[in-house]
């Protein structure tokens, strides 16, 4: 579904991702883990066209999308929940959801997706007229995920969606992700600090260290590799 080959990318003239290759198949749940500053966010931003790509190619469903504009990439049904600034704070909750689905042409389909989002996150319905900037942290993350889902994505990319949440709220959000994956059959890429949790949910993992792919494989393989754990994920991670 998504294939990244020998990617070198970053901001300005600064290369942060150094020669990373990996593949995501339809239906996968990929966890990208690694220490702070390893380039996890930059890697997913590169997929969405938010960085400068110096070398390598990114292919999505057979289309070469390397260095496309973000607004063009979004039309290919990629949903993205950025780490920061993941809602439109000055717009109401319902407007946020509406603009999330701006790429969906079919009105009926659009309504169906919004109903589904409200079903997953009932709180959004009671808050629909409220400005998104006034939501609590957990509600905002739910809206961010809902907004990305409104685009009816084939591939959903989440960048540390639970970063600033209380453990119990984070747990709820992870449960929803599992639910979303089952119900909608979307492919998910999850960037997480909490390696143990992410690898527990995923069927494949990518360990990124200093902009390079340090390990790729199933969660079992990663959790069995003592070196990876000790060097990059910390003793307590698994």
């Amino acid at each position, binding site marked *: 579904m998504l294939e990244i080959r020998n990617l070198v990318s*970053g901001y300005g003239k*600064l290369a942060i991702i150094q020669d990373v290759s990996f593949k995501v198949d339809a239906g996968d749940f990929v966890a990208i883990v690694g220490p702070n*500053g390893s*380039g*996890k*966010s930059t890697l997913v931003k590169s997929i969405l066209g938010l960085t400068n790509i110096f070398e390598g190619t990114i292919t999505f469903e057979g289309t070469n999308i390397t260095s496309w504009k973000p607004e063009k990439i979004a039309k290919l049904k990629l949903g993205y929940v950025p780490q920061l600034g993941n809602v439109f704070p000055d717009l109401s909750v319902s407007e946020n959801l509406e603009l999330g689905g701006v790429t969906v042409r079919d009105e009926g389909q659009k309504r169906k997706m919004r109903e589904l989002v409200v079903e997953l996150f009932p709180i959004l319905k009671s808050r629909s007229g409220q400005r998104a900037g006034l939501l609590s942290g957990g509600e905002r993350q739910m809206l961010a995920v809902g907004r990305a889902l409104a685009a009816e994505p084939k591939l959903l990319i989440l960048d540390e969606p639970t970063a600033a949440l209380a453990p119990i709220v984070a747990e709820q959000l992870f449960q929803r992700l599992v639910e979303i994956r089952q119900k909608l059959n979307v492919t998910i890429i999850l960037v997480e600090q909490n390696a143990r949790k992410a690898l527990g949910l995923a069927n494949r993992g990518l360990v990124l260290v*200093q902009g390079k792919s340090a390990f790729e494989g199933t969660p079992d393989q990663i959790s069995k590799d003592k070196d990876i754990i000790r060097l990059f994920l910390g003793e307590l991670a698994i």
Partner: protein
Amino acid sequence: MFFGLGGVVGATVAADLLPLFSGAAVGNICDISSRLSRESIALAYPAISVSVWVIALAFAMLAGGIMGLVASYPALRVKEEWFLSMILLVGGETFRIVVTNTPEIGCGFNGLDGITTPFYWLSNYLPSGPLQAEVPTGLYAAVIVLLAIGCFVFAQKICNSPYGRLLKSVRDDKVAAEALAKDVSRVRKQIMVIGSIMAGLAGALYVYYIGVATPEDYIPALTFGIWVMMILGGYANNRGLLLGAFVITMLDRGSLVSGIALESYFPTLNSNLIVYGRYMVEAVILLLLLVFRRKGLLPETRVKTKAYTLFDFGKKNAKPSSQPAEVPPKGDATTG
């Protein structure tokens, strides 16, 4: 604004002091007879003429400095960098409106004229002819060049001193400079006062050169021209400013000369177009610079203090002091 202030203050002081020193009655400095008496005094008393000039310059610098201090109060308290340009624009326009509408300052809208160069009396000793007018002006121009060189050397000295390094640190990272126990707002205030003293001096020199001070001269297009000079040469760079000033002045004079030439060939040509065209060319130059070469023609250089020579920075065999740009950051520099 400071430039205009220096001009108006210099002219007013000169107009008030000339008759005072020579014992003539201080009448209304704005009317036509006072203009003639100013010219005759300047012609008759060399000593008074030169000393009044010096005093007028001093007052213009003082006024510039005081205004700089006053203006630094709001200018240093604004929250956004572009608010500063807003404040200075407002200041400039306020100055123009106040002078225009207050006859007590610089004779209001009509301005103050009859300000002759301090060497006007020389024409008494010269044979009549074109030289009679040219020599005092030429001498005065030479004095201006000397003063300009003086200011340039002074500015270079400041920039290449530990104080200059402090200035750069304040500009580049206010918080870091504060963390090193530097009083940022005091430094900013100081530099604003120094800058406006220089502008006041320039204003008074200019008025003495062209002979009149009218508020309508100090239009935003003048300030704009100075900006273009600055960015053309590369800002934060005294040598660059010199180059920029040279280019823009050439453009100015060149357009005047070509204007006269064109007029002689096409008598129907509208002479205003030359001036307008010059302003338009300046605007286009600035836009092109901003888009294609934001650092200007001469980029900013290293501060040359003692430390510079001590460690041989910038020489071939210098120790690698800064990291190349392509190195991926370690730690949590950019991503999370």
